[in-house]
């Protein structure tokens, strides 16, 4: 008896006409690790929420078909009719935003994790034992007395996972749980999840980090427009010829093997490093640097353009002996010096390394305690944020922190009008920016009717439209699928070509390797490495990268193995 049986499931959100789930049937066996892949809007989250009973119990709407759980000792459970507060004994859900998963009722991590058990009425000694076990398992035991709201995003997400794990559900659903985490945090989450799956827990994971899905999942469900296109082992799914058309970029290993025609006995291409290397034992292949570049960037031509953009040496920002602290006793930066030229620059590092603080200083939102930041030769300490607004653009991580107009075009025109553009000019710039971010045709929509990934594009467009010399992006790829990431990559190339400096804070290392010329690695308020992509990720820096808790891009891992 499969643990989850989904039969002919159809679903429409209230007030809409499109079927988000259109005749979905699927069975999942106990202990399986299932990945769900597909473009944004394919119905992945909705499907997972149907297993949790949130669809239709919480969201209402039109529902057809059924989802049946079969739990040992409990018999068959219909998720449409069993209350969610009962279902939560069997199914746990972890989602993207760690902050919203905190109950808000507890002032310590320990109490937060115990919250669900209190509601289930678990005995005290049992409760304490379980809380201690999961806190240690997720490496957050030391934070047990801290206020969960004071933790970083990655730590908060681990608290959220602990809060679900502690309830010991048989099925755990993770809906892009690592999108807001640094690479090390991501790795930790995946490791924990993998351990869980070995203990017989059934796992359903939605994830855009495709290499991770490929190496952890037993099977992958490929979705498109509310339908299941295919269910198979990762190697088969990613070897499909139409995979990119479905909005999923196959792992770098699959792309590499396709190029060199390295096949599994069954004719599929391997999707993980291990399986690729296993096939290469005893084989000689002639790999040139160009080929690797091609695998990395997808297109050869683009990489050539990249190397030649921006006249090097023209200094945009000159930071010298910068010191900064939020509170008197903790220094964030001490005597930091750095200069930024026009090369597109990625700033990477663990959560809490000081990346956001640095770009906020560049933007003038924070003032240095000592030292100077020169922008175009002038000290920015003497300028107000509003004065800098026309020169330096900054896209915040969360689009909901800025959106307030009732249609997309007005929202995007707000910035340009503020910095003194004429109505016509502002409109022209905004339409151009919207087109660049793939929002053409959505000008009249209410931003709040758009999905999060589209709202992020609106936020980016609203800053691009200001036509600033510098544009700073804080985690632009969060919540984006492959087409979305390509759109952002296109924007970065376009702006660099226009001679603008693009600075981005990123956790997605493959995106960094594909789209940036300069990489700055930060840890604990210091710059550990600074240079071109190839030199920063070269094997001689392995130790420093490990120290900064950075995981290399998969393409570099592959090259090293070769």
């Amino acid at each position: 008896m499969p643990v989850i049986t989904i039969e002919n499931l159809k679903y429409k959100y209230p007030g809409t006409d499109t079927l988000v789930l259109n005749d979905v049937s699927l069975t999942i066996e106990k202990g399986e690790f299932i990945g769900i892949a597909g473009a944004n809007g394919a119905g992945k989250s909705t499907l997972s929420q149907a297993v949790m009973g949130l669809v239709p119990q919480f969201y209402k709407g039109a529902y057809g078909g059924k989802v049946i759980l079969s739990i040992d000792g409990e018999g068959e459970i219909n998720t449409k009719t069993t209350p969610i507060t009962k279902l939560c004994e069997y199914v746990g859900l972890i989602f993207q935003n760690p902050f919203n998963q905190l109950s808000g009722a507890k002032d310590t991590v320990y109490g937060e994790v115990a919250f669900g058990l209190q509601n289930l009425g678990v005995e005290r000694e049992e409760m304490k034992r379980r809380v201690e076990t999961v806190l240690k398992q997720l490496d957050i035991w030391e934070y047990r007395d801290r206020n969960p709201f004071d933790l970083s995003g990655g730590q908060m997400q681990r608290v959220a996972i602990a809060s679900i794990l502690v309830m010991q559900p048989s099925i755990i659903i993770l809906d892009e749980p690592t999108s807001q985490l640094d690479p090390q945090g991501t790795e930790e989450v995946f490791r924990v999840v993998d351990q869980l799956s070995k203990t017989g827990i059934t796992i359903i994971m939605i994830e855009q980090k495709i290499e991770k899905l490929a190496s952890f999942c037993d099977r992958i469900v490929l979705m498109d427009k509310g339908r299941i296109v295919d269910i198979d082992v990762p190697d088969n799914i990613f070897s499909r010829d139409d995979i990119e058309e479905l909005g999923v970029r196959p792992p770098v290993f699959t792309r590499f093997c396709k190029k060199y025609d390295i096949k599994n006995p069954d004719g599929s291409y391997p999707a993980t490093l291990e399986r690729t290397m296993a096939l290469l034992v005893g084989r000689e292949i002639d790999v040139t640097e160009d080929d690797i570049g091609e695998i990395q960037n997808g297109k050869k031509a683009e990489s050539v353009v990249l190397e030649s953009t921006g006249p090097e040496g023209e200094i945009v920002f000159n930071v010298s002996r910068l010191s900064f602290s939020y509170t008197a006793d903790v220094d964030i930066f001490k005597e930091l010096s750095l200069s930024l030229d026009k090369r597109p620059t990625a700033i990477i590092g663990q959560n809490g390394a000081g990346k956001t603080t640095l770009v906020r200083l560049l933007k003038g939102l924070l003032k240095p305690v000592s030292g100077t930041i020169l922008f175009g030769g002038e000290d920015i300490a003497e300028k107000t944020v509003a004065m800098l607004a026309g020169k330096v653009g900054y896209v915040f991580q969360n689009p909901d922190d800025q959106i307030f107009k009732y249609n997309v075009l007005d929202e995007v025109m707000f910035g340009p009008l503020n910095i003194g553009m004429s109505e016509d000019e502002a409109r022209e710039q905004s339409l151009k920016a919207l087109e660049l971010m793939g929002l053409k045709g959505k000008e009249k929509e209410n931003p709040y009717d758009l999905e999060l990934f589209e709202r992020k594009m609106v936020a980016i467009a609203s800053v691009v439209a200001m036509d600033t010399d510098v544009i700073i992006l804080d985690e632009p790829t969060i919540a984006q699928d492959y087409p979305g990431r390509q759109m952002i990559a296109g924007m970065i190339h376009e702006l660099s070509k226009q001679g603008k400096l693009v600075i981005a804070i990123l956790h997605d290392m493959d995106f960094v390797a594909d789209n940036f010329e300069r990489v700055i690695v930060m840890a604990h308020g210091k710059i550990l490495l600074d240079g071109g992509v190839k030199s920063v990720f070269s094997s001689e820096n392995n130790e420093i990268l490990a120290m900064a808790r950075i995981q290399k891009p998969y393409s570099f891992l592959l090259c090293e193995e070769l």
Partner: protein
Amino acid sequence: MKSISLFIDKGTWLNRLHPYTKLLYILAAVAVPLIGGNLWLFVAMIVSSLLILASGKIIKNALPLIAFSFTLIIVIFLIQGLFNHSNETAFFSVFGLTFYKEGVMYATGIGLNILNMLLSFGIFVLTTSPQELVDELEKSGFSPKFGYIINSVFQILPQMMSTKDTITDAQRSRGMETEGKLIVRMKAFLPLISPVVMSSLINTRERAIALEVRGFGRKQKKTWLSDREKNKGDRLIGIILVALIVLTIVWRVVLCR
């Protein structure tokens, strides 16, 4: 995180006391002078509250409360001392203003009452974590949903305040002036407040899901991480306070006969 509760954990005996014992103290502090009907009882309770605050090392934190009550008390003195309707006997004169005995006595009564209440309430607020109080209330049969509202106000309101800072930065980054003349500030109101409201609404929906998937709202008796058993001190203080109230009542009854 900026906390909006006044609670300070100094690890003193006051922090270890059960919230209900401290509530009982408020009751006693307010009831004894009122029942006893003697101004000296107010003074006695005020002195005892001050001593308790001092022993809990929080007298400094109580100063704003005292300062606040003093402005109020002075106003009452002026009004009652000068204009109370039963004013007959002149008491003293300052700058040609005559204060009357009846009004001054009346104002003293009110003033001491206010100070007494504020101090005894101060002991409670300064030494009891809101979380602990809500837990105890829920254990005594209070609705968990109502408890959640109180708790979440203390947790989520400070979060909303910090979201407001981020939003201000985001809009300033887009060239919006947030400081200066009234008209500038008024124009900035909508761009600042709409995202706060909208993102709170979005967050609320997600949080509702988060609570539900953790079994909140289930018709089942909750369990607790710890019992806040009343300790020896609690019992002793409780007995003393109840005895005090009873004694005052008896004394008053005997006196009236």
